[in-house]
């Protein structure tokens, strides 16, 4: 009986510990060529950035954080770190690459084609993400 109790305790401890395991860094993305060279049809102006901010605050901030650091309130529950949008590495990507990652998505990053149906909204959020650049 005593051994059984110990086993249960160990199991509970392991279960609890499994939640403290650090988030893994996102693996490399496979982005189709058509997206890689896709041009952003929306000029990066104040209007599109403002619109992008609205979309970002509604759909993205809960994981990606208010300033794109990947520290939103839901971020800690993700298995994969949502990324630091202020980094030079992130900002070096083309708009098309960001579009694929943001709108098409994969795994924990959901597809947003339905939730953000307007093409203009989709591209405006890319423009807003450019403002995180340090």
């Amino acid at each position, binding site marked *: 009986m005593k051994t059984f109790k110990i086993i249960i305790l160990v199991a509970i401890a392991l279960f609890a510990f499994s939640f403290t395991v650090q988030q893994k860094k996102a693996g490399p993305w496979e982005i189709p060529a058509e997206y890689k060279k896709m041009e952003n049809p929306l000029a990066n102006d104040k209007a599109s950035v403002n619109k992008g901010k609205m979309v970002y*605050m*509604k*759909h993205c901030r*809960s994981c990606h954080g208010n300033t794109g650091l990947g520290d939103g309130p839901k971020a800690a529950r993700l298995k994969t770190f949502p990324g630091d949008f202020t980094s030079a590495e992130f900002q070096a990507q083309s708009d098309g690459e960001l579009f694929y990652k943001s709108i098409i998505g994969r795994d924990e990053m959901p597809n947003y084609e*339905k939730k953000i*149906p307007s*093409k*203009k909204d989709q591209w405006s959020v890319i423009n807003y993400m450019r403002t995180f650049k340090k």
Partner: protein
Amino acid sequence: MRTKYIHKKAKNISIFGSITGLFVILLILGNPLNVNAQTDEFANEPVSGTFETGLLAETQTVATPFAGEFELHVQHRFGLIENGLEDVFGIYATSNIRMGLNYGITEKIMVGYGYTKEFKLQEFHGKYRVLTQTESNSIPVSVAVYANLAINSQDKSVFGNDYKFSDRLSYFSQLLIAHKFNDNFSLQFGPSFTHFNKTDTLVEHDKVALSLAGRAKVSPSMSIFFEYDQPLNIDDMREFASDENDPEANLSFGIEIGTSTHVFQVFMSNYEGITPQRNILYNKNKIDDGDFLFGFNILVRF
């Protein structure tokens, strides 16, 4: 007595005139959404986010769920605030609740079911988006039609003598016309028609009403909104001579917070019925008398 009718009629017509007038003027004055040349690419795209969701306080809006999307609604109305701290502004008073589920069959068609605590109403409804405003304003307004059927599922003794099942039924239909002026401001005008198969004594069976609703964003995820509903209590359209049972107008105003999966609306309103036909035909709470109550709507998308 006659003078009173005429006065009331004139008042109704002037309110009707002001509401439609205001909407038309705003439509004409409203700047096209986009004036920049670069937006040509998107000229014929439908505008997004005219309203956060298909429900704004007490009225339907031109929005519907996406195809294949469910929306769970929890609508709650507390008691009137008139008793002050005695029942903490109606929080501890008797409340009315509606739970509902909507489903987007296509991008344009929505169906749903809901039940309301007061009068045990079982409600089936649907909405069809006829037109969607475009970025270039080549289509200047979004138009939707909404209809519902409510079944009063109380004990049949409530319906008096000669009970028939059809006594339980009431209908509400509305034409919704909305214009998004810019990313921050949208207005909607909605004439509606309400019909009850059986009403209380000397309460009319039919009522035409007008609604005007607007929303203004104050931050990327928060907006303030208002809604005004005016039942047309006009003599020429009157079923009975007495105007004693005329329904009162409604004013709702509050704040709305929208996220990717949830919408929260907290507001004050005169209406306590939740189901639109109950509100339109039976509201006795007067704006002038301050008969307001607190209400909230919670909507979850999945």
